[in-house]
């Protein structure tokens, strides 16, 4: 089918890009075979997870230009659906994850319809508002364990369990997540050359012109928002079975939403590789800063100060992010 062919079509990237990407892909595949600390492994898993969050965000926030600061609510819906179904009914991951996805997408349609009547910073604030409302609800809702959250008892399932995705060793998690990661890249690759992707990019350029070319702006935004939600929800479900202990404060907080948006914007919103680059820069920075400066530094937010500085720098000098700088250099060289 044309869609599959399009997903694998990277022909518009220069050869050097494809070689680098290929090498990185091989590196990622071989990574667990190289003896490294468990710390490095968990950092890599974090990197992959945030790449997926970021790729999702990128569809509506990057290509579409609608800065969404409320993605954490879908992390929550995905994570909690999986966790609740697992704890109550021993539901396999491969069932609970799609259910979480459906719930997330349904919710995204509900709030997307009114949300996209707003623009720019009004929209951004409204996304924050909805995410905080949902978090507040989860913090008192007994079904999801209220503020204490939910925990998966360690001996409930025997590792390795591919049905419920419970493993003792991180390597299993890594490869499954890597699979999601590659699928995610293919989906974004499909998206950016699809009709919807083009519509979004036209919308970002000028909504008025987009309408005059027959684009139903409102509907396109809602559809893309649902796509972004799907990414986030899937990664959220994964998060639940990986960390095995979730609570609203660390799954659905504003900081998570901010981090997701930040990474995509830093790496280059509106480009395929941007969110991955962003995650690749920020996640290791965060982890290793915590290691070197001690746990207190992590809590004190020194890493976030660096992020903040980076973001301020990027917004003032190159709003297109790291990838934007790369492309700029390339264009200059071509001329």
């Amino acid at each position, binding site marked *: 089918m044309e869609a599959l062919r399009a997903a694998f079509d990277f022909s518009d990237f220069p050869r050097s890009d494809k070689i680098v990407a290929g090498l990185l892909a091989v590196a990622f595949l071989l990574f667990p075979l190289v003896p490294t600390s468990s710390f490095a492994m968990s950092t890599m898993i974090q990197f992959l997870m945030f790449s997926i969050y970021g790729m999702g965000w990128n569809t509506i926030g990057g290509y579409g*230009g609608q*800065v969404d600061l409320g993605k954490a609510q879908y992390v929550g819906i995905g994570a909690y659906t999986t966790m609740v179904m697992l704890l109550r009914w021993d539901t396999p991951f491969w069932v609970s994850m799609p259910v979480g996805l459906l719930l997330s997408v349904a919710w995204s349609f509900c709030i997307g319809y*009114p949300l996209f*009547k*707003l623009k*720019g*910073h*009004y929209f*951004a*604030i*409204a996304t*924050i*508002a*909805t995410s*905080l*409302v949902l978090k*507040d*609800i989860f*913090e*008192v809702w007994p079904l999801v364990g209220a503020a204490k959250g939910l925990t998966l008892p360690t001996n409930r399932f025997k590792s390795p369990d591919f049905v419920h995705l419970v493993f003792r060793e991180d390597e299993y998690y890594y490869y499954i997540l890597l699979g999601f990661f590659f699928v995610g890249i293919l989906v974004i690759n499909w998206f950016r050359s699809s009709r919807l992707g083009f519509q979004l990019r036209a919308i970002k350029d000028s909504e008025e012109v987009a309408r005059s070319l027959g684009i139903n702006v409102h509907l396109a935004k809602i559809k893309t928002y649902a796509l972004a939600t799907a990414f986030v929800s899937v990664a959220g479900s994964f998060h639940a079975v990986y960390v095995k202990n979730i609570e609203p404060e660390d799954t659905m907080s*504003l900081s998570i939403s*901010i981090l997701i948006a*930040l990474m995509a*914007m830093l790496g280059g*919103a509106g480009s395929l590789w941007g969110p991955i680059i962003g995650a690749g820069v920020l996640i290791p920075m965060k982890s290793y800063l915590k290691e070197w400066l001690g746990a207190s530094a992590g*809590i*004190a*937010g*020194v890493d*976030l*100060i660096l*992020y*903040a*500085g*980076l*973001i*301020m720098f*990027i*917004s*003032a*000098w190159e*709003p297109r992010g790291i990838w934007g700088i790369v492309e700029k250099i390339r264009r200059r060289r071509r001329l």
Partner: protein
Amino acid sequence: MDILLGAIVSGLLLGAVFALVALGLNVIFGVMDIVNFAHGEFLMLGMYVGLFTSQFLGVDPLFGMAPALVFGFLLGVACYYGFVRYLLRGPALAQLLGTFGLMLLLRNLALMCFGPDERSVRSGLLVGVSFDLGMGMIVPATKLAAALLSVAAFVSVWLLMNRTKVGKALVATSLNAQGARYMGIPTDRMNALAWGVGGGSVCLAGALLVNFWSVSPGVGILFTMIAFTVVALGGFGSISGTFYAALVVGMITEIPGFTDFLAYTVGLRFIGDWPMTAFKFTFIYLAYFLIMLLRPQGLFGWKR
């Protein structure tokens, strides 16, 4: 009955302070169409200034108003000249990103310097004093003083904007920057002034707020949301609208009080046994959402 009256009075007093909090946001937005995501962080810093003034100088926390005002003004101007000015030439997305980054920077600098713990004012002339206004309405003196001072500050800024030459220049720039420039009003300086006034007033509000509200580095975002809701309800661009809207928003935080009242008198219960107080601010977020959908220009403002 006294629950209801108590809730109303409390809401109004809080609303008065909210008005001052939101004022700065409106001024900045009015003059340069930039939304300051770091607004709540300015407030937070103002709160710390107020707190430390009283702790280190041993004076009543209300005296923290003056240093906070100066601090806020300087911080606002510094942020403008040092950073925000460079955002203006970029796309709206960059502006959002930028003040967002500023928010993160300020919040985490505070976290690094002050630690994550909540702090509050412990001693002062009015701490622990309450006024009994009759009918069971007991009002903490700190809250009352803060509210009155907020109103005074609010009116001062209003007078500044509408009665002084500088203020009118500011309003002119907000209505039509280019036209104002042709009249000889320097836009750059007006922008800086807007940030100064905005920063100063919100830090002042912080110094007042800290008298009855504990401060921690994370308190900013809540107040950014409150400020946004107030300005959205009152109308971006309308200063008097901000005031009335703030009173309404202040009352929204007292909705748990109202529902308690209804439960008590009429036996009406919402959402079963869930603690409504947990949703104190949830209602504000919901309110923002509803306002933007139903009446985006607010009660008094104009559509931007």
